[in-house]
């Protein structure tokens, strides 16, 4: 299965600041997915990142708040902008592999 390296693994940030999360895959993939897992909740898809085009956002998520870059077929970033405590979550990237999806280990973000 694909190996996904996601960083940082965790961070504590001040409200009003921004954090960029990186996701590196060990092989080329067409689509990369960004999920959020709020405390005690399941994963929620934020957006799908295709290389060479703008990301597609799910309902309730907007580009100004969660800008995404996809400069090549193995890398993507998700930025959480102008953070508030409500943004405290685990953020995961994911790619499709072998009939399912492989997830990065996640970034635990705490906004204080």
């Amino acid at each position, binding site marked *: 299965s694909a190996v996904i390296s996601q960083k940082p693994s965790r961070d504590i940030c001040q409200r009003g600041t921004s954090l960029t999360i990186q996701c590196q895959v060990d092989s080329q993939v067409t*689509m990369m*997915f960004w999920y959020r897992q709020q405390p*005690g*909740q*399941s*994963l*929620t*898809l934020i957006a*799908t990142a295709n290389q060479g085009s703008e990301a597609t956002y799910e309902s309730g998520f907007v580009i100004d708040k969660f800008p995404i870059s996809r400069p090549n077929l193995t890398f993507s970033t998700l930025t959480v902008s102008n953070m508030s405590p409500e943004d405290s979550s*685990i953020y*995961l990237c*994911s790619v*499709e592999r*072998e*009939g*399912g*999806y*492989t*997830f*990065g*280990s*996640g970034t*635990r973000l705490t906004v204080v």
Partner: protein
Amino acid sequence: AQTVTQSQPEMSVQEAETVTLSCTYDTSENNYYLFWYKQPPSRQMILVIRQEAYKQQNATENRFSVNFQKAAKSFSLKISDSQLGDTAMYFCAFMIGTYKYIFGTGTRLKVLA
């Protein structure tokens, strides 16, 4: 609305015993995929087993098997010969279209020595 319900927030089982985790879902789609994911404390999401909705035969993967009842929209996971390493959060999910997942809220399973 498409939903996944896992009605057991927490479960425990003795090592070497068998446990079944329940999952029900709701969708008007006819073609979809069902998954069970395992999330250990490391937070890595690990695919446990997958079932295509058009297949009647229940999927199995070593000690893991499912009971898929399409008419009832039920997709339970049975873990046989439970091991301490099975302790994790388990998520049921289904996928429609090419990639969109709908996840349940998870069942926390603890295997007791």
